[in-house]
């Protein structure tokens, strides 16, 4: 590139020298003025030697206080003085020694989460450590008769236990206590209220027994049960935080990819560095190999290959010749290119993807809402049961009364109930996301597991995206190249697979898609029309589409081939034919689905012959062609009236009402623009087989949710009566509570194992 010279002259990182820019990846060093701690991401740092070189070269710069490079996480932490240096200087230095860096913008979010998780672990460590010590002092009293130990020895052990319980109460248990307090202040009954009541009651009783023995509270202490209970609760919380962070981590791995600054061509044709937030549609950007595309757009100059695995789940590099579409968040692998920006920020596929995952992780599925609805009366029931136990025992033995009430509060701790659904759903959603399946609504997992009818609303889902195009004939009186230009221009903006194939084909024939055209419009199920200016200056209305749309007789058509015509009024300018190819796994996947008792149907807007032909190849009994959106809607409604649960599979684009009417929907295919996809789930990539394993995994998820709920219900049904009768000591109640929560979480963790192509193993 002739322009590389002008890039290296100007410091390309100057955009980072504004405080608001560097604040995004830096934190103030509070003890020193003007000193910042920045975190950057260096992709090429592979070994310890690399990190050594980086540290060595940066340390010697003026204004750099300390550097720490970690090859394992590919991160560099730089502490620098804003009065003596600026980020652009050490960024340039990193670049010069061969390690181009990216600002780690999400560092603050990541570190927040790490701090949160670390704090939770620390609380757990304190609780468990103190619990072990308390158990040492409690253990002798389990076995020894009351007269076998000197009374002051027993007393000393109680004091020691009390001292060791203090950190647990004051530090480890604070999340529960403060949340319970917050919900009481809001006059609501949260999950933490009964738990905290139990903890506080046990602590108060034991403290009284330690320092003022002999009252109605007796002289038995419960420090062992108390510390154990808090430890178990914290184990559950910690696992929960970890599980959530794992999902969020997958999300942030993606977010981190977008570059912060890009090279843009200015009005006089020079490359200047601008902040990625200032890119507009239409800008021309320079992208070097190893960099990440900052926006969606087209390759303008040069050709390269791109790594789109983040967005498609397919690890093969994708060739990007001139004119090809590149997507934000994918990596430029082989050579430097110029690209024209078409979509930025919110409009990009990448952003849609991130939003999709973010919204799915916050949305509650219906089955979880049900659990929430049950929770309130359940909590009141728990409090009443505890009160009942208290009153029941009070006259006989006040100490036993309080501890029975505590046992009720502890044993019913509804952690298992509240974790049952979200743990399983989130585990599955995270697993799906890793395998290239994105969930817009968690609810979909539940619905898909109940589906009995699958309707494919496009043949394109079952066939390869790009079809083989042949120019069968073109009008002799017209310039063939001009006709190809017309085809390229008309098909340029359509998302229809046929138009995409035509566009690709025309470009391969050296056509240009930049002709002047007016009044372009696309008629669904027909074709496109627009008005062109012919080489000799006349206005020419052109139609591109199927025979009916173009008003041509179908005589020349064979059964299996799809024909596309280009006409100008009565004149036929060209005739093209397309051949479709069935996707590699489609047949096996369909027969697998049918053998699972699912009814597979195919509704297509295509002509009847090719649709029937495809259906026969795949073994689909019920297929109809020439279906308009209204017909499809009618068909789906009819199926629903018969009591069927319908899953629509398509590109999720043009059939809004049908998708809305169906119980749930999956959009699939690598060409799906996510921003417009309406479907509940989006399957990235082209493998139809994923559908089989997806459905079975959804079923497994719901099975596990049901197991979890059943377990929680059974456990409570058994535990509460025992606790009221005073047969359940507090420590055993704590153990039962913890075991039920752990069981629920571990059960959900089984879902993180998803074999995308596992369905094929049953074949052969």
């Amino acid at each position, binding site marked *: 590139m002739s322009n590389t010279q002008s890039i290296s002259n100007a410091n390309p990182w100057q955009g980072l020298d504004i405080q608001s820019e560097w604040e995004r990846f830096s934190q103030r060093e509070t003890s020193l003025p003007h000193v910042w701690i920045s975190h950057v991401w260096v992709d090429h740092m592979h070994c*310890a*030697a690399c*990190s*050594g070189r980086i540290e*060595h070269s940066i340390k010697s710069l003026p204004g750099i206080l300390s550097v720490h490079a*970690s*090859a*394992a*996480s590919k991160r560099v932490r730089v502490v620098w003085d804003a009065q003596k240096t600026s980020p652009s200087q050490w960024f340039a230095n990193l670049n010069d020694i061969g390690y181009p860096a990216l600002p780690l913008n999400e560092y603050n979010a990541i570190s927040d989460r790490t701090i949160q998780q*670390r704090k939770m672990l*620390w609380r757990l*460590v*304190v609780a468990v*450590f*103190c619990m072990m*010590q308390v158990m*040492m*002092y409690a253990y002798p009293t389990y076995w020894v008769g009351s007269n076998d130990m*000197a009374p002051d*020895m027993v007393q*000393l*052990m109680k004091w*020691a236990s009390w*001292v*060791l319980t203090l*950190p647990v109460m004051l530090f480890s248990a604070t999340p529960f206590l403060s949340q319970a307090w917050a919900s009481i202040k809001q006059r609501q009954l949260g999950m933490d209220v009964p738990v905290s009541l139990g903890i506080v009651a046990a602590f108060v009783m034991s403290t009284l027994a330690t320092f003022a023995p002999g009252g109605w509270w007796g002289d038995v202490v419960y420090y062992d049960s108390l510390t154990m209970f808090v430890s178990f609760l914290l184990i559950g919380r910690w696992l929960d935080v970890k599980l959530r962070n794992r999902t969020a981590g997958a999300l942030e791995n993606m977010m981190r990819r977008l570059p912060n600054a890009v090279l843009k061509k200015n009005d006089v044709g020079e490359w200047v560095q601008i902040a990625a937030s200032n890119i507009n549609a239409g800008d021309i950007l320079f992208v070097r190999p190893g960099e990440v595309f900052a926006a969606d757009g087209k390759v303008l100059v040069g050709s390269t290959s791109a790594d789109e695995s983040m967005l498609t789940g397919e690890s093969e590099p994708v060739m990007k010749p001139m004119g090809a579409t590149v997507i934000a968040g994918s990596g430029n692998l082989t050579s430097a290119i110029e690209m024209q920006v078409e979509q930025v920020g919110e409009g990009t596929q990448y952003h849609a993807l991130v939003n999709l995952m973010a919204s799915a992780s916050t949305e509650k599925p219906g089955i979880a809402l049900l659990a929430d609805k049950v929770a309130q009366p359940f909590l009141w029931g728990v409090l009443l049961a505890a009160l009942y136990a208290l009153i029941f025992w009070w006259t006989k033995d006040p100490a036993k009364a309080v501890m029975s009430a505590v046992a009720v509060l502890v044993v019913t701790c509804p952690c298992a109930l509240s974790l049952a659904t979200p743990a399983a759903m989130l585990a599955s959603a995270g697993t799906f996301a890793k395998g290239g399946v994105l969930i817009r609504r968690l609810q979909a997992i539940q619905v898909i597991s109940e589906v009995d009818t699958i309707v494919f609303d496009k043949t394109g889902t079952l066939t390869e995206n790009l079809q083989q195009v042949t120019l069968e004939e073109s009008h002799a009186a017209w310039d063939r190249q001009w006709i190809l230009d017309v085809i390229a221009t008309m098909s340029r903006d359509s998302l229809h697979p046929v138009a995409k194939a035509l566009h690709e084909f025309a470009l391969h024939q050296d056509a240009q898609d930049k002709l002047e055209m007016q009044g372009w419009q696309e008629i669904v199920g027909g074709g496109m029309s627009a008005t062109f200016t012919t080489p000799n200056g006349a206005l020419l209305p052109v139609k591109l589409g199927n025979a009916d749309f173009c008003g041509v007789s179908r005589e020349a058509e064979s059964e299996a081939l799809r024909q596309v015509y280009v006409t100008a009024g009565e004149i036929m300018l060209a005739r093209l034919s397309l051949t479709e190819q069935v996707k590699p796994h489609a047949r096996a996947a369909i027969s697998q689905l049918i053998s699972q008792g699912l009814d597979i149907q195919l509704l297509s807007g295509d002509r009847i012959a090719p649709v029937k032909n495809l259906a026969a190849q795949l073994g689909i009994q019920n297929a109809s062609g020439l279906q308009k959106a209204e017909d499809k809607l009618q068909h789906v409604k009819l199926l629903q009236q018969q009591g069927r649960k319908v899953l629509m599979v398509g590109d999720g684009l043009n059939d809004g009402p049908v998708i809305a009417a169906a119980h749930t929907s999956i959009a699939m295919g690598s060409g799906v623009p996510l921003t417009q996809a309406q479907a509940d789930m989006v399957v990235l990539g082209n493998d139809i087989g994923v559908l089989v394993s997806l459905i079975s995994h959804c079923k497994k998820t719901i099975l596990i949710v049901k197991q979890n709920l059943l377990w929680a219900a059974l456990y409570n049904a058994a535990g509460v009566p025992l606790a009221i009768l005073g047969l359940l000591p507090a420590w055993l109640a704590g153990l039962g509570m913890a075991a039920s929560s752990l069981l629920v979480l571990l059960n959900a963790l089984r879902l993180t194992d998803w074999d995308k192509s596992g369905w094929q193993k049953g074949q052969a």
Partner: protein
Amino acid sequence: MEIAYLLIPLAVMLVFVILGGLWWAIQTGQFEDLEEEGSRILEHD
């Protein structure tokens, strides 16, 4: 068994010393980077 009167308070104090040590270790980032530190000795300085 009189020694227990000394040992129990001592054990309690020891617990707090150990917890304090762990706290220091976590706060100063001793567990931040478990893989990297082992190879530092192999690097040139």
